[in-house]
Each structure stands twice: as C-alpha cells, then as structure tokens.
C-alpha cells in the first residue's frame, strides 16, 4: 500500500496524462451515448457482461443461464455492434489492425477470473462502472471501488514480481 501511494504520488507529479485527454473523454462520451441510444429506444440497460451468461443459454439448460433467455438475442446483436463499431474506428480514423503483446496465459487466466467475478459481483466496468454509476446505485459504487482497488493492487504486484507485458 505504501509502495502504491508512493508510485501514485510520483506519477501525478510527473505527467498524469502523457497521451492527452481528448480521445479518452470523447470515447467515454460515445460509450455512454451507445448505452443511451438503446435505453431511450427500448428501456433496456445494456451492460456488456450479461452477454456471457445469456449466450451460454443457447447451449446449456442450467437455470442460471436460462433466466437470460428473453434478452439473449438482442445481447448478441449488441455485442456484434461493439465488434463492428470498433472495427469501423480502426479502419477509418484509427491505425488499422492492432495486436496485443500481453501473454496468452494472462489473457486467459484473467478472462476466467473476469468471467467469474463479473457474474458473482453483478456487473463489470460497463454494468457497474457506466450504467450503475449513471444510476447513482450504491451497489455499483461499491463494486467499482472494489474492482478498481484490487485491479490496481494486482497490476502493481504483477509488475513488481517482474512479469513484463
């Protein structure tokens, strides 16, 4: 914790936004706008992670997944929209194909934990972070504070033990 506080202090002193803030803020506004379009038109609140369980209902009869059956079709459409929307950016304003250097084992293991955690914890960065915070929901404030702090601690620890990206 002391190490983290020290690192935080140094980072803020140096330059908190080495890449500027414009594209971050504009991207965030568009993320919110995407949710707003769906909400205003349909009354549905579109978080990204329910898609995981609702899509599992196509192949599994477990009650946990079948409860999402009514929304599973539109969640597939929403997710396809996200994939294509990101592609439109990459191949118009963006720099085309981009590939990560994060190791596959980190992506896979992190993905497993994200998949468990988002469903047990009732939301992810978009469900709690965007829709829940936008709803001034106490559960979402607690959820966001929890996963932000734990993620910061985890990332710092992973770096401290020398696992490079």
């Amino acid at each position, binding site marked *: 914790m002391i190490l983290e506080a020290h690192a935080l202090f140094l980072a803020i002193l140096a330059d908190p936004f080495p890449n500027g803030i414009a594209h971050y803020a504009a991207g*965030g506004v568009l993320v919110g706008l995407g949710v707003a379009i769906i909400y205003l038109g*349909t009354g549905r609140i579109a978080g990204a992670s329910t898609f995981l369980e609702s899509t599992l209902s196509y192949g599994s009869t477990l009650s946990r997944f079948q409860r999402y059956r009514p929304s599973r079709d539109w969640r597939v459409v929403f997710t396809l929209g996200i994939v*294509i929307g990101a592609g439109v950016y990459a191949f118009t304003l963006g720099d085309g194909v981009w590939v990560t250097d994060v190791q596959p084992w980190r992506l896979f293991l992190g993905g497993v934990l994200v998949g468990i955690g988002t469903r047990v914890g009732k939301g992810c960065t978009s469900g*709690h972070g965007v829709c829940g915070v936008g709803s001034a929901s106490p559960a979402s404030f607690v959820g966001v504070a929890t996963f932000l702090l734990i993620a910061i601690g985890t990332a710092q620890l992973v770096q401290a033990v020398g696992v490079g990206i």
Partner: protein
Amino acid sequence: MSAEHEQHPLFMPVVFAGGLVFGFGLALSNMAQPEVVLSFLLFEDFGLLFVMFGAAVVTGVTFFGAIRFLDGAPLTGGRYERRLKTLDTNVVVGGGIFGVGWGLSGICPGAAYASIGIGNLPILYGIVGMFVGAYVQGYWRSSTPDAEPAAAKAD
C-alpha cells in the same frame, strides 16, 4: 421466438446502432488495448478515468432525464428505470475476483469484444476464458439454492 421484444421492427436496429457507437467509443479511447488499461492501473496514464466518467455522465443525464420527463420507451412501451442491484457480499467478493482478473490481463468484457474489431485476435484467449469463468460460476451456483431469483436482469 420467445423474446421479450415482441418485435417492433426497429428494436434490433436500435440495439445494433447503440452497439456500434459503444464499440467505436471503446476503440477511440484505446480501451480495446489491454496495454492502455494496464498503464492506467500502473499509474502511468490516468486517461481511463475520463472514459469512465465521460460515459457515466452521459448515462446519468439520460437515465434521470428519461425517468423524469418521458413516459415509456417507444419501441417496447417499457418503463424507464435505474440500474439498481442489491448491495451484498457478492458485490464485494465478485468485484474482488473481477479486479484480480482485470489487473492481471487488462481486459474487461466490453473492451474485449471491441478488441476483436480492431483485429486483436489473441484477445480470443481472454474471451474464451470469460465464457469458461461465466460457465463455472453458473454451474456452481445452479446447484446451490438461489438467494435472489430476479436480481440480475441487466449488466
């Protein structure tokens, strides 16, 4: 089809359009790149705060405005409601597990879908992992009594 959106012809197009804007925004903000998320968690670039706050301000104004001033959603007739979940230990335990995964990999669900769109195929390791994780908790929680049957409608 037993779906809830008994079928205004514009329902799916509007959901798709919302997804397009959402995904475009994630790619523009570089959240589709795990390295950028990790650089935030490592205190190298605090831009992610603007992404989250920018998005939450827009949804906040939209949700509260719609609830206050509009009658119901035109394509479904559904009432506008806030996204409220019960605050219990699951929120903290699940949030903690999510945080370890997010901190280890730099990926979260929406950003991972967007990452496919920018051609980042290794992200599929992460997405397969997410399905495995969602399945494991669903398997395990389907065999235990359900404390809150209708709590998790959308997120």
